[in-house]
């Protein structure tokens, strides 16, 4: 997909001017925040489970090569095949080759952010395959020609009326007089259309929430059941997963599953958690005949050992964006690539380069709400700061910022000079405010005064007044 992260500021402005989007973003709060809080409150061990989940991933990342090798061995033993893809292009090629080898016409897909990351749909369609997203949200945005704006609620930016209009436009063989007012009728219509696609698909492509080294299993976690129909009905099941999805054992994945749904949707457990291991067995009446796992690196192996390694603990629950006031203001598309919100602000520069994604880690107040809810205890603000450091070191930050910063730093490191400047500043601002308590404009403060008044100082600096008081007390 086209990267628009460099024009983040313009994207954000457009998003904030979009009344439909702003209305839809209200659903983020309604849908997620209170539910998570309730689910967390119901489980006294939740904080300990977060520690446990973090430790499991840290251990796994420290031994990633060995777990991946064991995982591959187990997949192979079960009759499946692991394909290693260094980058998006290689991943696409592997998948296209598999589809070609089985002469696939119709392909169904479960929700997969890796599929978005490697822009798989466009490649499959260009090769003449019919591709259907089957997660309801993904289906809606596929009809709209859009990309997900949220990693677990891809169509959170879309309103019901827009869905109805899209369904009427695309499902043009259905009677136009049908009533689609209720969300239930929209769901029923999508269910009917997609059921037919499930039953006639040649290849099913899913993502994976986890890969289990002990057993060679891939795990998907869903509520709709679409992922399951995608992976049991077609002849071929392809799993797309990035390599950090690995966990050692079933016990380990049980720990992380306990924090995943609660953090994501506030459910105690998602409706369907499914472990797939290899293709169907000889005696099985259903299941795929072929099972492929495309293991994507795409820059992740280079994050290990850096200050961004902790990001590889991410389990894509979306809690960070659900709680992010910046995300609430601008939605997911403004971030300009696959991953929005705080996790995207850290991951995107790693995957597309800080020269393109550098705006994202800057657009944070460091309020820390993301870190406070992250089930994997990823220090997201700290890593956004690390990106700012990389930018600063590479002289990528804007010249005005650098100039302002160095002027300020010069004074801040010289307390006497600093005091002189602040005295003058306090006096000047105070005079300019003419006893009105605030200024409507001030040079170089346009970003501030465009939207708010600048409170006026009280006239003298604290240091000045404190010194005067002490002097008066002595004399």
């Amino acid at each position, binding site marked *: 997909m086209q990267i628009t992260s460099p024009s983040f500021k313009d994207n954000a402005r457009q998003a904030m001017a979009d009344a439909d989007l702003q209305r*839809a973003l209200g659903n983020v709060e309604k*849908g997620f925040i209170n539910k998570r809080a309730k689910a967390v409150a119901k*489980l*006294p061990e939740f904080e300990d489970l977060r520690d*446990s989940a973090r430790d*499991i991933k840290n*251990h796994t990342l420290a031994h*990633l*090569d060995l777990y*991946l090798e*064991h995982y591959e061995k*187990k997949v192979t033993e*079960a009759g499946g095949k692991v394909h*290693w893809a*260094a980058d998006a292009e290689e991943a696409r090629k592997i998948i296209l080759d598999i589809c070609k080898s089985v002469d696939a016409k119709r392909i169904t897909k479960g929700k997969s952010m890796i599929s978005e990351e490697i822009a798989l749909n466009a490649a499959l369609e260009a090769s003449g395959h019919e591709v259907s997203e089957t997660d*309801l*949200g993904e289906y809606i945005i596929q009809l709209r020609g859009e990309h997900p704006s949220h990693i677990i609620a891809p169509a*959170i930016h879309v*309103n019901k009326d827009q869905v109805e209009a899209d369904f009427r436009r695309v499902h043009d063989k259905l009677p136009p007089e049908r009533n689609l007012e209720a*969300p239930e009728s929209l*769901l029923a219509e999508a*269910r009917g259309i997609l059921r037919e696609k*499930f*039953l006639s698909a040649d290849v099913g492509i899913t993502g994976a929430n986890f890969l289990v080294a*002990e*057993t*060679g299993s891939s795990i998907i976690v869903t*509520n*709709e*059941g*679409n992922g*399951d*129909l995608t992976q*049991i009905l077609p002849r071929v099941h392809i799993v797309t997963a990035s*390599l950090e999805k690995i966990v050692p*054992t079933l*016990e*380990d994945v*049980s*720990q992380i599953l306990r924090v995943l749904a609660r953090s994501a*949707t506030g*459910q*105690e457990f998602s409706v*369907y*958690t*499914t*472990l797939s*291991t290899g293709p*169907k*067995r000889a005696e*099985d*009446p*259903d*299941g795929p005949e072929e099972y492929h796992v495309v293991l994507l*690196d795409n820059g992740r*192996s*280079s994050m*290990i*050992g*850096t200050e961004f390694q902790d990001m590889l603990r991410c389990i894509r629950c979306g809690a960070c964006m659900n709680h992010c006031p910046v995300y609430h203001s601008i939605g997911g598309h403004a971030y300009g690539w696959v991953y929005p919100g705080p996790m995207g602000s850290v991951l995107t520069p790693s995957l597309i380069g800080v020269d393109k994604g550098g705006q994202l880690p800057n657009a944070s107040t460091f309020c820390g709400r993301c870190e406070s809810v992250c089930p994997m205890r990823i220090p997201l603000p700290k890593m956004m700061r690390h990106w700012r450091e990389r930018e600063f070191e590479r002289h990528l930050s804007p010249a005005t910022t650098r100039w302002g910063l160095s002027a300020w730093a010069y004074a801040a490191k010289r307390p006497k000079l600093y005091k002189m400047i602040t005295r003058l500043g306090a006096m000047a601002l105070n005079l300019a405010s003419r006893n009105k308590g605030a200024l409507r404009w001030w040079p170089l403060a346009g970003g501030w005064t465009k939207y708010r008044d600048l409170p006026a100082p009280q006239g003298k600096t604290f240091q000045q007044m404190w010194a005067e008081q002490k002097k008066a007390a002595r004399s």
Partner: protein
Amino acid sequence: MSSRETILATIRRSLHASPGDRTRAASVASRLADAPAGVIPARGQLPDDKRIKLFAKMLEDVSATVERLADAGDLPERLADFLKSHNLPPQIVCGEDELLAGLPWKKAKTLDVKTGRADGTETAGLSHAFGGVAETGTLMLLSGPANPTTVNFLPDTHVVVIRAEDIGSDYESVFARLREAYGKGNMPRTVNLITGASRSADIEQTLLLGAHGPRRLHVMIVG
């Protein structure tokens, strides 16, 4: 170099790990062998009867219906009653499961029991769960001729039978049973952990049941 080798080499370089490092290998081997348990919530650690009650309550919290049968022999009639009470046709599809096959189906004369996988034409499916998890009201179903996975997803109504003694406290205890049954490191093709009926909140975060899987989940606890 293949991508496989390149990726593994990059990881090892990033970790400053030498390929022959015995300590790392031993650490991985022991974790895989021992599969240490982590934090297990106290919630499910209950004596039999309370555990089963918790299991039922958690399922009801996620819009499933639950009934308890003292005797498996009553199941065919109770199942027929259930279908009738929901105005569903007296038909059911199920696999070759031993428990299900051994039921006195003659007691429910009107009920049409089809054996095999589901193909999307059936209105109700019947499965026998391998285990249950009281902690969250989760069912574990295993693929195979006994309980084909399609039965879990294609029919609109899914009825799951579970023996009371198969309801464990937590995921770990049910996974442990699975390991015993299949051998360590081996799995059936599909293991479904099911907690409630299919749902979606993708339209304006409004929760709707019956997205792609069953709209209705009914659990019959035997024993």
